[in-house]
């Protein structure tokens, strides 16, 4: 197929981070696409959980919301929302929480609540939903988002969910035993936290992307790994599965 978009590269790269043993709490939007591509390619036995209580779901089209009927109809089981958060998430059964973000900082702290001041916001965003506890209770967190100067900022306007805080051992000092943000997948690069400082560091550039491209779309001075590598381009299979899924989804959501 050869040609692909930056968006497709992001979704495919995110899907590769998952495997069949994962129990993944799926955020809506880009995370949902990535998780389902994983399920439809190399990770057929992955357990996908949406916060509406659907466990082990296998939708044939991407849900518009976290509670579309398709999710329940194809789920192994569906539980009530209090049980979802109490037994399954707080109970420690989720290996990966897969989140999107409106704003993120270099330590993987996320804002989806407001732009500006909380009481007099410039923009009122939807808020956290399940994210504050997904971020603290999943064994680790993957984040996927498109890069932009507005989205990747030195200082987020609101701590909707806690990533690595100020870095270093901040999570441990907060009493958290889970790993926190472990991978950031953007449309330009793969980022992993530095083992010591926990600052997100670019480990892979997507094909055709330069260091300057990454820096031009990021609001903090970007650190690059010494052994910086290149992401493998999407395979023909990955691209065709992704495009088929998107086409089915577009047809299903139109009148």
């Amino acid at each position, binding site marked *: 197929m050869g040609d692909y978009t930056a968006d497709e590269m992001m979704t495919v790269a995110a899907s590769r981070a998952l495997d069949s043993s994962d129990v993944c709490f799926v955020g809506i939007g880009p995370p949902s696409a990535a998780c389902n591509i994983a399920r439809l390619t190399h990770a057929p036995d992955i357990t996908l959980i949406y916060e509406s209580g659907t466990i082990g779901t296998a939708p044939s089209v991407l849900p518009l919301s976290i509670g579309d009927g398709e999710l329940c109809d*194809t789920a192994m089981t569906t539980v009530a929302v209090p049980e979802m958060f109490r037994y399954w998430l707080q109970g420690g059964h989720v290996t990966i929480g897969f989140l999107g973000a409106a704003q993120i900082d270099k330590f993987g702290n996320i804002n989806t609540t407001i732009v500006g001041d909380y009481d007099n916001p410039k923009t009122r965003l939807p808020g956290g939903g399940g994210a504050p506890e997904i971020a603290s209770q999943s064994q680790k967190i993957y984040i996927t988002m498109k890069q932009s100067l507005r989205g990747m900022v030195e200082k987020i306007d609101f701590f909707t969910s806690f990533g690595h805080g100020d870095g270093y051992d901040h999570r441990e000092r907060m009493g958290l035993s889970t790993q926190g943000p472990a991978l950031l997948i953007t449309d330009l690069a793969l980022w992993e936290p530095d083992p010591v400082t926990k600052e997100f560091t670019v480990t892979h550039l997507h094909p055709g992307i330069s260091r300057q491209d990454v820096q031009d779309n990021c609001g903090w001075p970007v650190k690059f790994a010494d052994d910086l590598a290149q992401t493998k381009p999407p395979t023909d299979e990955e691209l065709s599965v992704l495009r088929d899924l998107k086409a089915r989804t577009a047809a299903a959501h139109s009148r």
Partner: protein
Amino acid sequence: MAEIIPLQDAVSRHMRDGLCVAFEGFTHLIPHAAAHEVIRQSVKDLTIIRMTPDLIYDQLIGMGLVKEMIFSYAGNPGVGLLRRLRDSVENGWPHKIALTEHSHAALANAYEAGAANLPFAMLRGYVGAELPRVNDQIKSITCPFTGEILAAIPAIRPDVTFIHAQRADKKGNVLIEGILGVQKEAVLAAKVAIVTVEEIVDEFEAGSNATILPRWVIDAVCVVPGGAHPSYASGYYARDNAAYIEWDTIAADRDRFTSWMEAHVLSASPDDFARRVAHLANPTQKRAR
């Protein structure tokens, strides 16, 4: 004890200005028809509770009926933001409402605490999150056994809870199937519970672990086919995703919103919902995998 009565009567009998009301349904089974009836009867100064405010709270807020909203995710799922809510919070149109904001885990726990007749809920929540700074209803409690500090929030006890469900029987017992959300908890936590249903049947033919709300925890059952639209009722009709997408442009403009509400809510009745789901009546089936 459940009375089977028209929705107009249930709302006029149980609702009044200033009450604290939950309209629950987690994406699935959202009680749109009930909220529209409340809007038509112009019940004001409401404190509204919902995990995911969705279109019905955008509509209640835009019509100026809300004083305060308690919530945990105020978006149009998969589409974007709630534009009437934004206009209220950012520009004070038609007036500025108070927000009490939680996480999903906290609000789900708070409903459960209400159902369990406890004064508060506790969870291992809000760690490192900023909401406790802006919501004084989020406090902490120390475990008397381990010393661990946990988040505590007040139980939710609505004056009135509205939910939508698939079926009731002739006595007024109610069956819910599919995504259950927090409806059972919201009903058991409330002083008054009003349930709209797709239909009334002779027998449920449900399994022994089915989610059934007995008629003695419900005050009114109202038959409103299609009453969740544009949300959905599993087994009856699918979610009208196109309507959710369209709402984004309707709610973006004050005049367009006002004329839409006039045409589709103020000049409409509960009987109009059946027609709105006719093109969606494609019962989903539990599929073999």
